[in-house]
Each structure stands twice: as C-alpha cells, then as structure tokens.
C-alpha cells in the first residue's frame, strides 16, 4: 500500500499561551513552540502501522515555509519513508481550498492507494481532507477512528460520530481519509530517531514544479481571507477567586457546599 500523509506545522497549544499580536493581524508568533498538528501525528502512525502490516511505503507532505521541514523530518524519524515539502512565496495566504489544490498536485505527482489527513488542524477548520478528496474525485471518510484492510480494492473504516458511536463503512481504494485522535497510540520519537534522518534530503516543490497557477493558490486565489485576530469582549466570565491558597480553598469549599457539590 502506497500511502501519502498530509502534515501541518502548527503552534503547540499545550506548550504555549496563544495571544493576539499588538496590531491584531495574527497571533503573537515570537517565542512560540511549534510541533506537528496533533491529528496528523495519529495519521502518520496509522500509515506506518498499515505499512508494517501489508507492506508498501509512507510519504509525508507538508505545505509551509522552510521551517515546516522540521515536522516532515520528525515524521520521517517516526518511520515515514519519504518526505516532501511544498513551499513557495506564492503559496502564502492560501485558504483551505488553496492548500487542497497544492496537495492535489502533490498527489498527482505520485501514485498512492491511500491518502491520509488529520481531522482538523490548529484553526479547527476540518476542511482540507474533504476538499482534496472531491478535487481528486476519490471516496472520502472523515473522522476515521478505525482502519481495517479487506483486500487491494477496498478497506473498512470506522468513523467517529456523535456520542462516541462508530459508523462502519466499506470504502473503495484509492481513497482519502481524515484521521481522528485516539485511533492509535503514536510512537515516541527519540533523539536517536531524529539523528538518523537528520541529513536525509527533503525535496522542495514550488508552484512551477507542481504546475499550479499562481492565481489558484495563495492570497490571490483565496475566497476566504482572514482580516484580524482578537479576543472577544466577554459577557460576565468567571468570578476569579483571589487570595492565598488557603483562602481560595476555604471560599471554594463554601461555594461547593452551597451548590451541593460536597456530600
């Protein structure tokens, strides 16, 4: 099985407090710790497990600036065989459709049986996987939390739906799946793994290599454009308990008693 996994470099929300920058044009990017999008890590792990199971190869691809090379390399340290970076000034400002257009071009440069994305990335869009599938005219399943091999024509996938129930489907290959967290336990990547792939050449493709028109991607092709970032004025918000820990604990116990929170 030849598998392509789309991965995005994102600010690590577990490591950073995300704040708006001084002129409200972006989040504050100074001193941010970046990592691979949580969902994509599960997708890469799933791809590696499928490869280990039935053979084939895993390629990871990312659209981003040169810094994104680091996440491609990290996923290669996990066990992906190949990495590709799609990078060009012309890609900047792409909306979801622009990103999907670039990934489509990358898919068409290879030959893949299975294309995986994460269910969603940092902006919580959950759009690129479904768009990519539609552009490629391939079957698609979102929020996949189980993949079972059937034969070389089809696979079985579970989709996570409301209430934690699972919707089982049969889906023809090739297809696109967006992977939900929890599907597996992504393996740990140690320093040694990173070192092993430190000098692997990662090809970079720009607009020309991919054969995409500059007006189809980037800010020029975007129908959806971000204007500003802000933190909304809140209605009431929480009453913050202040004071020493002892005082806070005491106040909280009073409140819990009053609300029936202590038995």
């Amino acid at each position: 099985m030849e598998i392509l996994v789309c991965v995005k470099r994102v600010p690590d929300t577990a490591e950073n407090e995300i704040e708006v920058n001084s002129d409200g044009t972006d989040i504050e990017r100074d001193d941010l710790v970046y990592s691979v999008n949580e969902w994509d890590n599960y997708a890469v792990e799933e791809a590696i497990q499928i490869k280990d199971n039935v053979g084939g190869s895993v390629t990871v691809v990312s659209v981003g600036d040169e810094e994104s090379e680091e996440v491609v390399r990290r996923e290669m340290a996990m066990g992906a065989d190949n990495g590709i970076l799609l990078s060009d000034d012309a890609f900047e400002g792409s909306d979801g459709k622009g990103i999907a257009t670039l990934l489509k071009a990358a898919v068409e440069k290879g030959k893949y049986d299975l294309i995986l994305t994460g269910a969603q990335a940092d902006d919580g869009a959950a759009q690129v996987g479904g768009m990519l599938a539609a552009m490629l005219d391939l079957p698609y399943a979102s929020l996949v939390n189980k993949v079972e091999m059937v034969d070389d024509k089809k696979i079985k996938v579970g989709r996570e739906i409301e209430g934690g129930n699972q919707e089982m489907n049969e889906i023809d290959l090739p297809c696109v799946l967006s992977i939900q967290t929890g599907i597996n336990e992504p393996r740990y990547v140690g320093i040694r793994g990173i070192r092993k792939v430190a000098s692997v050449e990662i090809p970079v493709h720009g607009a020309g290599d991919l054969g995409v028109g500059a007006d189809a991607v980037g800010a020029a092709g975007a129908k959806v454009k971000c204007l500003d970032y802000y933190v909304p004025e809140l209605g009431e918000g929480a009453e913050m308990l202040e004071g020493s820990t002892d005082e806070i604990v005491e106040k909280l116990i009073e409140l819990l008693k009053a609300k029936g929170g202590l038995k």
Partner: protein
Amino acid sequence: MAGQIFAYIGYKDGVPDDSALELVAAAKKIADAPVNALVVGSGVDAVCSEVASSYQEVWKIDSDALAYPNAEMIRKALLNILPQDCILLVPHDTFGMDLAPGLSIKLDSAFVPDAVDFEGLDGDTLKVVRQEYGGAVSTHVNCDISAGAVINVRPGAFQADESKAAGGSVVDKSGDAGDMSAGRRYLEIVEAEVGDVDITKEDVLVSIGRGIEDEDNLEIADDLAEAMGAVVSCSRPIVDAKWLEKSRQVGTSGQTVKPKVYLACGISGSFQHLGGLKGNPFVVAINKNPKAPIFQVADVGIEADILDFLPELTDAINEQ
C-alpha cells in the same frame, strides 16, 4: 445580491436537531431574505412538517437509498438540485464535516468552516466570525460569496429562532436527485461501550483535562472525587491517551452530562468539550492559564496549577 440561502437540516429518529432552528437565526444574520430548508433521507415527512413553519420552502429528497445519510451520495443529489450560487448553511457536526468541504469544491463556491457569527454582508463580501486554537482567539474572515458559499455553522453558536413565522411549503425534489452510487458504503453502527460508571447520572463531576499531564497524577483527581463524593470524568485527550475509559469522556463525541456541579481541572474549554455539558451546572474552572477560554463559561475561576491545588483542596475537605 448573492444567491438564495439554504439550511441543511440534521435530524435523528425523525426529530430535527437543535441546529435546525439555529440556522434560521444564522441565516437572518446574513441577509433579511427568505430561507429554504433541505431535508434529505428516507421517510422524512415528519421532519419536513416539523421545520416547515420556520422556512419559506422545504426541499426534500426522500429515497430508500438514503436510509443512512451517506455524505457522498447526498453530495451528488444536492449538486443536482441546488442553484450553484446559493449560500448553504450546514451544521458543523460529524455529518457536516463529512459533507460540506467536498460539496463546496463541486459547487465551485467558497467554504467557511465552523462559523460562530456573521457580521453583515457588504456587496459580495460576507464577514464571518470564527475561533482558532480551541477558542483562545477569535478572528474575522471575509468570504467572497459571489459564486456561492457553503458555510459550516457551529451547533449552539446561534440562539434558535422559534418564531416559526415562515409557514413554508414542502417541495419534493426526489425525482431530480439522480444517480447516487458511491465509493463508500455504510455497513453498521457500533455503539459506544458502556463503562463502569455512568457519568450522565452524576450530580458532581471532577473533570480532568490535559493539564493533569501524566497518568500517575490521576490519583490526585481520584482522591478529590472521593473526598467530595463525586465521580471523575475527563476531556478527550485523557481518553485518547487511554488513561481513562471512553465512557468518562464529556463532549460531543463522548457523553452529555447534566451535573449540578462541574469542576473543570486543566481543561481549556473547547466547544466540543462544552457541547457535552448541559443543564446549566455550577462550573468551577481551575487552570494555570488565566486566559483559558474555560474561564469565559465558568461561574467561578481559580488560576492555579492543579497538581498543587487539587491536593490542597482534598486535604481541606477531608479535615472538615
């Protein structure tokens, strides 16, 4: 002015989802124009009549082939009936995520995911409010709707419009649906496993999130829950890490709980998590980040490291 506005109606067992009336309100914030509903499935008459009073027209596609809502089949059917320049609102739920992005490509229209508000239409430019980074920041996006738009709307973001002032008629479009063959075929639903405790029946929940940091620290939450006479629940990452059973997860893809008191410990407050918290409980949030979105919805907030604070609280309760 842009095309006609449509709302995709989600439903379960013949009953429209709450989003059915929320989308009426959402549409009104885009333009003061009549809105049509789309009801797709098998045996949908009850759903159609339920929403008819809220929409100008209810377009239905009723087909045995759609006994289960297969997004690929429904996409094909919608392409045959929708005007290409329409503005289609879809609930941002597990079905909407499956259907809408691909549909926008096939309609060649703009797509906006997870909209939480609209701030007006200026010519062909619709100003939409979204959230990023789990609600830590909000953002305005401009969407060019000149060639139509598909917009996923966050469930619960708009107050349901109960006015039922449209008095719509049902229009049967089933004959126009066309070929609905698909590369993905529905097999069955596997129900979520039932766990050792039923958090949906508990009055007091000590709920832990990624802030608990390590599996060994779960003890801290267990001790507090025991002292309070409460039960431990959690956010999704705790279940993904296999530290607690799925049946303890609160949220849209977990359980819907209705406690009296909810202690959110090291939980940021994503909408998928809060989507499972109903019944207006007294919410106490404990988080080391004073800007965590959970503080926007909590009644009482404490800025603290839960690894220090929870044991202090447990000791104080036990001493009483």
